[in-house]
């Protein structure tokens, strides 16, 4: 690449800023229709929840034997999705992946919003939500439920900080560029949230320290969160749940579904706001590779679990295996294995399908499959009889489906609203990334021309003056 022919950083940045602010400034009719649709679904769910509040959990299909259902599945699913974000963004940031900048912000938004949605489902699952605070009053650290409360609270605070901290320079950018172009409320948000950011060296250093600490600490926090979520199952003596693999299985599954959700959100925003230049096929392909790697890991964990348990086939396991592999849950289970784990790998194996539509297809399949997996883990575990009685059956009622749909709508709604307010592309990081890349290119060219020795050019942290 000839650096002289590269578009100047100034022009490129100006275009990037225009493209990033476009969603905030321009609203299409499709946006309003989409928003109205989400509000209606959410409102319908609220109505269903009002019924549940009035009549109690009686309106759900949950009874004495199967006492967890769609809500807890949704809780696990959303908490899983929340790993999208932070974990992917933090790992990519910590490993200095050069392509991460355009996707990190979206990933971090997914995290914060999914976490709030997931936590909501715990409260929805309570027959007496007014007793929620008893967990703080009477909670004991010996209880896995308490571990959950601790881990999720920590994760929520950490991921909001991790979303917000790297966004400050971009908020300042919005504050400066969108002055008098947006309404009073958004102006106030930018003014407040930008924290007087002027890009002084002090501010940069403080921000850098904050980001560094957060990106490191958030990785163990995120791992702990989904491990602990798995332990509300794994700490009980129930067939199907009584396994030591649950922690890692859930964490891997969480990252797996997180990547898939990121791909889907990325694809939608890219299409909607014409960000094809920034979010390229490369991003889809790299995330697709990650998806395939985690699919293989999930296959390995599943084989490992089912083989060790099935080889010994303790009492009750036979029932669990039969219902999962052959009977009531065979359909969803094989969907999960074949379409959710095997097909995504195949999609990434063949160069022909390794395209953007291919990766998106794989992501949709993975998200569906991972939701199904959460569902059958919850329900099949409770369905295995503990005493010689007939196994119970569970199928969610319309109220449960409505509330679940409202949860999905809430998730989409929050992202939809965020798009109208916040910078969804990490502008300053994308500019830095590009400058780095150009500097590296330039350095290599100069080395090739013999005008600079390798030691001098390699990884010069300051952008060189090669860009006009």
């Amino acid at each position, binding site marked *: 690449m000839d650096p002289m022919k590269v578009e100047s950083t100034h022009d490129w940045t100006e275009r990037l800023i225009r493209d990033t602010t476009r969603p905030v400034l321009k609203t299409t009719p499709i946006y309003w229709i989409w928003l109205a649709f989400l509000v209606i679904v959410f409102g319908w769910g609220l109505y269903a929840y009002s019924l549940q509040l009035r009549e109690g959990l009686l309106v759900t299909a949950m009874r*004495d034997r199967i006492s967890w259902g769609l809500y807890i599945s949704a809780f696990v699913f959303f908490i899983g999705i929340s790993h999208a974000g932070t974990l992917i963004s933090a790992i990519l940031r910590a490993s200095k992946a050069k392509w991460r900048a355009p996707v990190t912000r979206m990933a971090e938004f997914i995290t914060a919003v999914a976490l709030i949605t997931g936590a909501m489902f715990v409260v929805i699952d309570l027959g007496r939500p007014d007793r929620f605070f008893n967990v703080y009053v009477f909670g004991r650290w010996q209880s896995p439920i308490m571990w959950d409360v601790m881990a999720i609270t920590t994760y929520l*605070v950490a991921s909001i900080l991790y979303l917000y901290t790297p966004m400050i320079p971009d908020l300042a950018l919005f504050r400066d560029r969108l002055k008098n172009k947006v309404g009073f409320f958004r102006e106030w948000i930018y003014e407040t949230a*930008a*924290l007087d950011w002027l*890009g002084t060296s*002090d*501010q940069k250093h403080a921000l850098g320290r904050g980001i560094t600490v957060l990106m490191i600490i958030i990785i163990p926090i995120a791992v702990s969160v989904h491990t602990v979520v798995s332990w509300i199952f794994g700490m009980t003596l129930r067939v199907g749940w009584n396994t030591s693999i649950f922690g890692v299985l859930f964490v891997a599954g969480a990252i797996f579904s997180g990547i898939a959700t990121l791909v889907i959100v990325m694809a939608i925003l890219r299409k909607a706001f014409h960000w094809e230049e920034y979010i390229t096929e490369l991003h889809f392909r790299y995330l697709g590779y990650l998806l395939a790697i985690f699919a293989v890991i999930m296959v390995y964990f599943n084989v490992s679990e089912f083989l060790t348990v099935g080889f010994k086939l303790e009492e009750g396991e036979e029932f669990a295996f039969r219902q999962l592999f052959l009977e009531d849950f065979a359909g969803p289970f094989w969907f999960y294995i074949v379409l959710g784990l095997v097909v995504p790998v195949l999609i990434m194996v063949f160069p022909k399908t390794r395209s953007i539509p291919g990766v998106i297809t794989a992501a949709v399949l993975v998200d569906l499959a991972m939701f199904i997996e959460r569902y059958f883990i919850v329900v099949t575990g409770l369905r295995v009889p503990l005493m010689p009685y007939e196994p119970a059956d569970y199928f969610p009622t319309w109220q449960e489906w409505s509330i679940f749909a409202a949860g999905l709508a809430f998730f989409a709604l929050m992202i939809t609203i965020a798009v109208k307010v916040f910078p969804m592309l990490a502008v300053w990081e994308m500019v830095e990334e590009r400058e780095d890349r150009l500097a590296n290119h330039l350095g290599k060219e100069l080395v090739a021309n013999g005008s600079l020795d390798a030691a001098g050019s390699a990884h010069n942290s300051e952008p060189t003056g090669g860009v006009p």
Partner: protein
Amino acid sequence: MIRKGAVRGTTAVAASVIVFALLAGTAAAADTSIAVGAPDSVAVGDRVAVKAVVTSGDAPVEGAIVELTYQASFGGITRRVELDRESTDANGVALLEYEQRAADNGEMRVAYLGPDDIDVEPFTFTIGVAPGGKPQYIPEAGVDIPGLNGILVMIVIGLVWLLLAYAAIQLVLVGRRTSGPTTESYLRGEGSEAGSAWLSMILAMTVIITAVGMMFVLSRNPLNQAETGMTGGYNRTPIGYLEVEYPYLGPGLEDPSIADTEDLLGDGRLIYFEYGCSGCHGVNGAGGVVAPELAGKVGSIGGFAEDVRDGPRNMPSYEPVVLSDEDLAKIHAYLREAGDKDG
């Protein structure tokens, strides 16, 4: 809760004891007596042996059945509870053993139960219970690893929150933007006026307050039910008190008038719960593990009343003293409607 069958059994025993006492009168050998050797003081969790010697005159009585009981109070009721029952050997000695569970035994008694229908004065005594001792109902299972405790949990979580607080404080520093040159950047526009940095303060405060609150919640760690039984507290051992009949009155409504409105169905629903019907027949009469579905399945009031009064199979019988005809009619009306509603 005592099941109806058990109550009837104890009543029968009590009745027969009275009958035997009347028949036996005072004709039996008055010189048969019981002597007891017991420790003065024991600790909770101890295995206690009480030696009882039954003699007739000077001769030991072989094969006499003796029973060791203690005075127990639970839920405002004080009754005798059997600890052990043995028969005497050739020396007239019976070794009565039990595990000390209660923090206070009250009056202990060794009584003669047979085989002869004779009237023997029971031997009463007391055993002091020393404070402390083992917790009662926590099994010995588990491995206690020193250092692996709540403090460690607090240290780990505390460290994590310290780092989060550090990151939040960096935001406060960003907000201060005091010194240092403004670096050139394509990203910065011209002339932004100074805003305010209060948001970073609020964020940092929130993080710190949440962290402190969490430590507080962790450090409180209220006792669970098992541990409140450390000394004579909550006792999970099911105890069947002798010689007493418990009429089942239902959990009772806090305010009975709420089930006494004009609305027959609403009342019926409450009463259905009050008398514990839902325990077996499921909420809304949908059926449960041990009892059939009732919603929409109940026939005429006559047949329904017969079943409720009699209690077919394992169902307890609800006699008119317990469940009035009016309440029964309300339940009946409710169950018929419940079927229609659920379709």
